[in-house]
């Protein structure tokens, strides 16, 4: 949710029951402005909230000129002081995939995970139990990255690609009509395309290269994992992703 239209977006997404208390909202509006100024972002987006046992994390992302470039992620515990998170890497993902359960809420908390590792000592090869410490911050980074890759969704036509490379916001985009908004094919995964290269030439012939440069939602497996539960009385449609329930796109 863009920091500038935060209140409206929160109101529209309220159907799922998750909202922000007034003091959080007020502090977000204030602090996001400051973040934008300090980090010189083009846009600052409020990504969401991750619930923890002791405290909750509030996540924000900053976007630079190129929309599809990796974003900088920040987190805060009180919506006022924001800290930058390191970018996500593959090693982080494999490392944190062993941790299950809820977040603690304390960024310095360390999860302990015992692994059997083969250790070579001279000629002997034996397995040793090694306790691996995984920091919660690392886990936070990789979880945010996984959620983004799986369920970040953008409507078709909102971004366009220029021949020079960078992807820009389409200023003439007014939104989708109601009939188009109900179709899964009008939405894309907001990430580097994975399936686009596997399409046949026939399918590619129908695509518009300036608009269709990301994976469409309609080829997702399992079918029906993203769905449209309701049409808000104001006309906006809320789409929720079954794979990662808790993620709503308005």
């Amino acid at each position, binding site marked *: 949710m863009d920091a500038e239209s935060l209140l409206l977006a929160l109101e529209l997404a309220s*159907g799922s029951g998750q909202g922000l208390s007034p003091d959080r909202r007020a502090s977000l509006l204030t602090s996001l402005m400051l973040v934008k100024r300090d980090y010189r972002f083009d846009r600052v987006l409020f990504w969401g909230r991750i619930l923890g046992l002791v405290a909750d994390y509030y996540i924000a992302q900053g976007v630079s000129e190129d929309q599809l470039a990796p974003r900088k992620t920040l987190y805060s515990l009180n919506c006022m002081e924001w800290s930058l998170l390191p970018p996500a890497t593959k090693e982080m993902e494999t490392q944190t995939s062993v941790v299950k359960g*809820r977040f603690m809420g304390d960024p310095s908390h360390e999860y302990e995970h015992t692994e059997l590792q083969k250790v070579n000592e001279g000629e002997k090869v034996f397995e040793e139990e090694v306790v691996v410490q995984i920091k919660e911050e690392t886990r936070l980074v990789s979880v945010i990255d996984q959620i983004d890759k799986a369920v970040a969704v953008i409507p078709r036509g909102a971004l366009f690609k220029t021949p020079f490379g960078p992807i820009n916001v389409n200023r003439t985009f007014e939104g989708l009509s109601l009939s188009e908004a109900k179709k899964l094919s009008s939405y894309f995964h907001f990430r580097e395309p994975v399936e686009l290269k596997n399409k046949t030439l026939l399918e590619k012939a129908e695509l518009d290269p300036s608009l269709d440069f990301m994976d469409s939602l309609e080829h997702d497996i399992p079918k029906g994992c993203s769905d449209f539960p309701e049409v808000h009385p104001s006309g906006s449609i809320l789409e929720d992703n*079954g794979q990662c329930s808790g993620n709503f796109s308005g």
Partner: protein
Amino acid sequence: MEDSIPVNQKIKHQELGETGRPWEETVTTSQAPELGLSEALELEQGPETGLQPRSSPPTMPLSGARTPDRPVDDLVGLRASFPSSAFQELPSTLSPLALARQDFMAPWQSDKTTSVIPEAETPHFGHLEQLSDKGGSTLHQTCQSKGNTFHQSQQTKYPLYELRDVSDHTSKQKELRFDIFQEDDSDSNCHLDQPESGASQVAPSMLEIAIQNTKAYLLKTSSKSGLNLYDHLSEMLTKVLDKRPENAVDIIENISQDVKMEHFSKKLDTLQNENEMLPTYEMAEKQKTLFLQGNVEGADQELEDEIAEHALPNIMESAFYFEQAGVGLGTDETYRIFLALKQLTDTHPIQKCRFWGKILGLKMNYIVAEVEFREGEDEEEVEEEDVPEERDNGDSEADEDDEDELPRPFYKAPQAIPKEESRTGANKYVYFVCNEPGRPWVKLPAVTPAQIVIARKIKKFFTGRLDTPIISYPPFPGNESNYLRAQIARISAGTHVSPLGFYHFGEEEGEEEEEIESGRDSFEENPDFEGIQVIDLVESLSNWVHHVQHILPQGRCNWFNPIQKSEEEEEEEDEEKEEEKGEEPDDTEQEVGPPLLTPISEDLEIQNTSPWTTRLSSNLIPQYAIAVLRSNLWPGAYAFSNGKLSSLGHSNPLWASQAVCGKGSTCQCRRRERCGFNPWVRKIPWKRKFENFYIGWGHKYSPDSYTPPVPPPVYQEYPSGPEITEMDDPTVEEEQAFRAAQEAAANSTEENEETEEEEDEEDDYD
């Protein structure tokens, strides 16, 4: 060149040639039987009469006589072209021709569909080729259409053409004509007249029917695209005639495709906006009724009555508190739900009502209201038949000896555990659901223990439609409404909490000592409750208690012993409990759960994490903050409490609300001296100081993904014995050996008898 080839097929032609004009004008269907005749042309393997084309243009007086009388619009003239030079002898008589015509008509009607759609090939108009052919006749139907009239154009495999004088139409037009072959005009005319007139009297109804059938066929809509041939061809030909392209016949397929594509494109008008009928308008209409329901008859008395009633809770106040906690549905939606609940309480005799929460679904969501009916006004449901069926082990058949007895299985179906009575246990409250505020409320059925037991084992998303079947393993007994009710019961039992002391047990009854097993199941509000400090509520979980009965593994709140023989025996069992346990090892142990009003600190942990998370709603302004409780076991369940006393109201809500009406200037509460009631200060209606709420998907938290349970091993159903043990059939050698042994045994006994007889005889002789 053609030879004189006997034509195997009999063809009738009737040309309507230039008489296409009258076809074009009217849209009404014609009832000309003859024209119907000419409509279809069928190749019949009829009598081998040779028919010959006329070399002259076949504007026959016949056709001339007929066509002006019968304006045809969607009529077909069949034109069949014959090799002009395939001159053959006329049929010997014309009666076969007449007969043939009648014959032709009859089968034509039955086969009209097939005749109308033979294989098509590209028409070659205007060719003056004459190809000789064995079968010799070409059948060429052309359609003519103007405006709304048109016909199919078909062609058989024998494209012999004869140029007719119908080329005044564009090449796009197709005509259907009949050509009747005659050798001599005069001969044929006079001959044909008679049979024709005869035929015409017989045929009219059949022809009409034929026409109608053909037209109906053409109007049939395609199951795939929703178009029909009639409209499509008329549109296509209209387009062609409007534009009059060059060589239209060559591009006719493209034209057809374009016409089809035009169906899909929306007419974009860049100057004016088209107003769409959005489904949101319908939703708004329904919700409008919610807002207008209050204006029935605004009498003052009703207003007072309404205020005095306590059935409707103050949802806006609860929503305000929940918003502090970061949970909620947004002000507008909450207000609409408020109005919908008001509608519910107005239409049903409800004692207490509460907004339970919202359950999200894939297609639609559920808004759930928890309701308690007034005493005695409970709406009885039709009892479902839950007859526990046991296999007929005991019944033995009379003819056991005669027939082979089937082995009796061990299996005894477990007795179905009856559901709890309404107003007790899991069925204490009745739940109503609706998809959106404004839609009608639907009452959910009572929950049975079996449903709860199986609901614990499956995990299904709700779709939003109550009649969706639940397909799962283990099979769920019921559809989505039952599953929803079971989940609501589980969530209520697991997450409905209140501050310690808010509720307490009623006055002790005499029989309580004996019924320790069942536990107390009733509680009341504690009028002396003073509230707990918010800090305490947040720090310690023992300040909160469950006020909904725990559901036992059996699926009920009150234990039900499945092995019950009779009431008398049951009483004896209760008294002699210890003895019974020794005697009946099959007896299941009684399940005991935590009693009512146990603190939530006793709840089990999952994975070393506490089942509840507590928070203060605001760290910045702690003096007005509220305590928020969030369940880790059921994500989406929240509870709040503002522990302090209201500075203006009483702790007892009943008396406080009366003060709002302004009725009475003295305090009616019990604490007269201490209450500090000041009639001059405006009172704020005080409802509850705590509230529970659920908003979520309706599933329990599990750290691992859901895996369905493995089916149990195959059950040993029958006692193993020689009757059902599988054995190989004896081989031939074994059988023979067996038979030999038997015979040997029989022989030996016979020999013994014989020897005995002989001995006897010998003895006799002696």
